[in-house]
């Protein structure tokens, strides 16, 4: 087994959740890395869709922006942005929406809008983009972000997109029929909503990670499953493919 970073196991673990049959709406950054790693390893037939309108794209490097030229050049087809959101996302054609976030709470509600009050923010974040409708119109949602006390908060400053609201039944009460967040992958662990309460629960710790370190990086009283799995470590092949992808990406974007 190779040495690997905590970001690498996060990306590899997220990638493993995807299959050839998935039609995946891909966010930029960590989601994009995980989705393309899946495509370059065990799920070559996966359909990746970026909100710029590119359907079934196969970039050789990770795009810096949601609309890099290679996304279009390697796509099956590129549609207008109104069509992407109307026919494909709202149309219910997406099996998995893959999101990152600045803040997440115990019910996998996400904030990418502001830190502080909306009208007088201490930090104005970029905003929701596609997230509000990805969260409700995809079959299910996978979330990937690093686990820190700043990010895993007891109360979001702003609910950009709904996860499980305040618990079981909240999505249904809003008329939402999709599953919502079913997996949260961090650099420390895998969390899933409890079947009864929908509260996020740690189900697997990455190798070498302690319960204590996960608790210390979470801003609420985090629940753990009665029996915890250990996340399988990245394989040599997964790491090689991911590192080659990252190296190609750095070279392509003019970074050292």
């Amino acid at each position, binding site marked *: 087994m190779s040495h690997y970073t905590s970001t690498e196991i996060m990306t590899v673990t997220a990638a493993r959740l995807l299959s050839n049959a998935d039609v995946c709406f891909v966010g930029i950054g960590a989601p994009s890395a995980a989705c393309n790693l899946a495509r370059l390893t065990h799920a070559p037939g996966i359909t990746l869709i970026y909100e710029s*309108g590119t359907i079934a794209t196969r970039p050789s490097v990770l*795009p810096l922006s949601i609309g890099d030229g290679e996304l279009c050049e390697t796509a099956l087809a590129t549609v207008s942005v109104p069509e992407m*959101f109307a026919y494909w996302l*709202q149309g219910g054609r997406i099996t998995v929406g893959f999101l990152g976030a600045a803040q997440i709470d115990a019910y996998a509600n996400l904030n990418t809008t502001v830190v502080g009050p909306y009208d007088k923010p201490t930090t104005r974040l*970029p*905003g929701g983009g596609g997230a509000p409708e990805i969260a409700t119109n995809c079959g299910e949602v996978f979330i990937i972000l690093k686990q820190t006390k700043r990010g895993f908060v007891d109360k979001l400053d702003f609910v950009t997109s*709904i996860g499980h609201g305040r618990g079981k039944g909240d999505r249904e009460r809003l008329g939402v029929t999709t599953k919502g967040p079913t997996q949260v992958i961090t650099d420390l662990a895998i969390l899933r909503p409890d079947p009864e309460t929908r509260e996020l629960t740690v189900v697997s710790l990455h190798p070498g990670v302690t319960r204590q370190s996960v608790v210390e990086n979470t801003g609420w009283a985090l629940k753990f499953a009665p029996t915890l799995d250990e996340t399988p470590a990245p394989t040599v092949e997964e790491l090689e493919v991911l590192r080659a992808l990252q190296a190609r990406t750095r070279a392509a974007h003019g970074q050292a």
Partner: protein
Amino acid sequence: MARFLSLADACEEVVRDGDSVAFEGFTHLIPYAAGHEVIRQRRRDLGLIRMTPDILYDQMIGCGMAAKLTFSWGGNPGVGSAHRIREAVEQGWPRPIEIEEHSHAAMAAAYAAGAANLPFAVLRGYRGAELARVNPAIKSVTCPYTGEVLATVPSVRPDAAVIHAQKADREGNVLIEGIIGVQKEAVLAAKRSLVTVEEMVDDLRGATHANACIIPGWAITAVVEVPGGAFPSYAHGYYPRNNAFYIGWDAISRDRAAFAAWMEEHVMRKGPEAFAPHARAATANKAA
């Protein structure tokens, strides 16, 4: 019928003080050259509209030209914050700015509704999303058949739309290829429109695919040839996105003085011809 004007004349004609203006482009084909000309013309009190305001709006807002920003995602894609936009929102510098914030799905539907001459758009959206609480423009209608309640947003109907495209022909017909975004909708939703293009060709008819994205000249106010006019964004088939520039912008834009100096040197003292080398460099690279 589209008129062929200089960039300066076209911008004066299309973008006026106090206008609501959409400079559109979803990462691709962002109309930087036209935007810089509008900055040089020192337009004021603009209501800027764009799904994905990035560096160009960072520059305009940093120059204090905008009274309002309507958007759904604002930042430097893949890099981080749009620092000038942040400073305007967080600290009101160089002037306070009103924001009207939507989701992408809502903005895209609002442009399409504008192009279709409808007063509002309906979407299965904003469920459980707090934007619906803070943005009074988000309302709802009840489906007359199912009783379901759906979100609505007002149409986007800007005074002016400004876009960049690959080609125009002698009738002013415009071809957009690749990631086409919401540019066609922006032009059709607007009262006046300006399209800058990489190159002029004789006739687009028969020169491309039957179902290509073409905006007829009679639906456009002004067309201007500006090679390289989308740099540091890109023009599919002409030159790639300059991702290094986007990464480098982070440092420039963090600091008020560095930003001001950059704008003075690269925008205020330049003209549209400054964009041509970006197109030529790409052509040279391609030939090499």
